[in-house]
């Protein structure tokens, strides 16, 4: 699949139960494309954080809201794009809350974890679209 891109799109509603189901569906799709178990777990955790933010913050747990997630697999990378219907957020503030060991609140670790586990994490449209990229390694 040197020049081939495998793509799939997943659409689900803004409630946590649907998020868990679609997360597992996405990991089913990605399973055979991950280099090893550690890479698969890294993607799974980052995906969980991205989807959770889309449900909790982008959709405010509203089942009438629609979240879209596209997954692209190439020979070089696995890319996940999550789009929620929210108004986004202040990315700078969220990045500032990245954990340095002094965060004693329950929240504020999701973005930091994503950035730690993935090769690229970026936002578009004011934060309502998240792009996660993990470079593939040879199996």
């Amino acid at each position, binding site marked *: 699949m040197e020049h081939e891109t495998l*793509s*799939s*799109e*997943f*659409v*689900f*509603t803004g*409630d*946590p*139960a*649907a998020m*868990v*189901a*679609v997360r*597992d*569906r996405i*990991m*089913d799709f990605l*399973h055979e494309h991950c280099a090893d*178990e550690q890479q*698969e*777990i890294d993607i*799974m*955790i980052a995906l*969980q*954080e991205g989807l*959770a933010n889309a449900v909790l913050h982008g959709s405010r747990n509203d*089942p009438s809201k629609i979240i879209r997630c596209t997954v692209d697999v190439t020979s070089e990378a696995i890319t996940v794009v999550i789009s929620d219907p929210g108004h986004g957020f202040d990315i700078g503030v969220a990045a500032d809350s990245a*954990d*340095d*060991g002094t*965060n*004693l*609140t*329950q*929240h*504020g*670790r*999701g973005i*930091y*974890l994503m950035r*730690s*586990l993935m090769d690229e994490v970026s936002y578009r449209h004011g934060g309502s679209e998240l792009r996660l990229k993990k470079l593939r390694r040879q199996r």
Partner: protein
Amino acid sequence: MDNIDLYAETNYISQTYSGKTESLRGIDMLKIDIQSAPPMVKLLCSGRLVLGVEAETLRCMATSRPERRVVVDLQEVHAMDAAGLGLLVELHCRAQRRAGMLTVANPSPCVRRLMALTHLESVLQVAGSAGIGMADDDESERCAMTA
């Protein structure tokens, strides 16, 4: 709408990948075994500690215990997310406010890695099995709960 899955089921059944001993995808939901030996209680967790019913179950279980020292054993927890990490911090802070203590015992490699990434190893009290003393097993109260 070609190639689009509209997926909103609530009872999706997990399956374990063949050929892999474990992965986040195939890990069971959270199960908690309770060993009480006042003034300490040990909550032996297995499965995944993630956002949703799993994190809520551990929160309810830990905050409802009367013992002042709570040990959360994570040896069999092989998947955790930011919500799970946040819960540990929340329980740690709650214990401190109540002059109690929360100890994270036997974190699995996955949990330890996430704790290291988020620098929580220096915040939480982490101990191996040797550092956790319990009363004689026969005298301790045992029960179990599954999320």
